């Protein structure tokens, strides 16, 4: 597994835990986010922008595999 794949996997793990609310539960009461709605809006918007940036970085650092402009084929892992 390449470094870029590991970094993306780590990012996605944190994103999933955050977006499903697991990371933000109030540990004392197991109830309610620390974030209120205005901040919560920034929270989900932030994840959208961060995911875009992260995927863009992942995409541009992708090793070239001879993909041409039309009907290129480098389907990673496909059997």
């Amino acid at each position, binding site marked *: 597994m390449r470094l870029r794949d590991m970094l993306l996997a780590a990012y996605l793990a944190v994103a999933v835990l955050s977006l499903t*609310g697991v990371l933000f539960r109030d540990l004392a009461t197991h109830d309610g986010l620390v974030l209120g709605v205005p901040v919560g809006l920034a929270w989900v918007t932030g994840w959208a922008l961060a995911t875009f940036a992260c995927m863009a970085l992942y995409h541009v650092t992708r090793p070239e595999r001879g993909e041409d402009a039309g009907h290129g084929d480098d389907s990673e892992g496909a059997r």
Partner: protein
Amino acid sequence: MSEQAQVLVVVGAYLALSLGVGWRAARGTSASATGYVAGDRSMGGLLMYFVTGATIFSAFAFLGAPGRAFSTGGAAFHIIAFGVIGFLPFYWTGPAAARLGREHGYLTQGELVAGQLRSRALAPVMALVGIVAFVPYLALQMRGAGLVLEVLTGGHVSVEVGAAAVYGVVFLYVWHSGVMGVGWTNTLQGMFMMVLAWALGLYLPRAIHGGVGAMFERMDPEFLRMPGLSTSGEPWSWSMYGSSVLVMAIGFSFWPHLFQKAFAARSDRVIRRTVVLYPTFQIFLVPILLIGFAGVGYAPPPSQSDQVLPNLLLQLDIPALLVGLFCAGALAASMSSGDAILHSAASILVRDGWIVGAGRELSAEAERTAIRWTLLPILVLSYVTATTFHEDLVGLLAYAYGPVGQLAPPVLAALFWRGATGQGALAGLVAGSTVTIGLPFVADLGVHPGLPGLAVNALAIVVVSKLTGSGQGSTRNDPRAPSSRT
């Protein structure tokens, strides 16, 4: 001219424009099934971005999402949350599916899985699961369109008449132009509704509360507390919130009509760039939620939470021309999903059900004709559902995501696991769908029923594949050589 008449003129102009764009889109594509279903595999980046984006942002986005923010507070964030990560698997599954599609002539998700796993029975079962999810989803779009027209015309146009008129237009351009009609109208509709969403999302909080900040300051802090309320008004549990986000995220890119666009893309690069850009489309939902929050505390409240946006527009002193534009924006959201679902459902029924499942041969022209005629019964079934089902829109969509999520394990197995067998995928699909649909009638585990369904599904695929496979993996080909048929 009365205000209602002005609204109808604007809506009529928008529908005529959509029909014109959709009708002309057929030019340049072949008369084959590949042309009608996959646009001769020629879609570029712009079309793919709007097809995938606008297809997902539906009547649910313009009506259900504001309604959810209005009625359940912080719970509405799950709508953005699942979309942020939901399309990412397509970065890998999309190009893999596209390559196999080019090699074997696949045009649908079911064909791909059935072909790769050498199991004819899989295609009709996957088609059935897809249709079970498609009908409520399409019904949701129709009902949304009808609701908007009914409310904004003061009841002069009923839900039934409005839905029939709007979907009559959709039927015409999908019938004539197939996926390219869907693609170009979605591009028009996507741009249109993004502009309107931001205009409304910034205007309404300012007009009603004096600004977004002031709007939140006036609200009850408990209402804003996560994870908010369920659609029935009860406090939503964290387990339901998290599992709903997870199930909807997993199901997101496996919706057959969305997945099918992999076969329409011009290249793998186009698919990957679309996925990279996709989270930016989620930003479009922020103003949508602001619209819903703007309606909190504004009297009189709508009779149904889905009607919060049209209700606000009627209460405020807005020129009829603008109300008509907003109405057209909501219809654009409905149509941009409804057309893709309708087109996909018909092609899936014919190709997965009739050609692969029943093993029938059709010429390219006969196949296109069969898909066109299949549009009608799907439209009628969805229309009946739309006019008889009275739950809220998001609830209807959440139901639809349960069965669709069950398509993920067999598709992933067909694409990436050489040890998977047709029997395994079939067992997983049947077991997972049964659990997802049946569990709510038997027990309440406190999580979205799609989650235990996915666990059972994946387990069944692994166990049955191990029991029925050769253990050596195999090179799987399409058993019916579909490339000769396209």
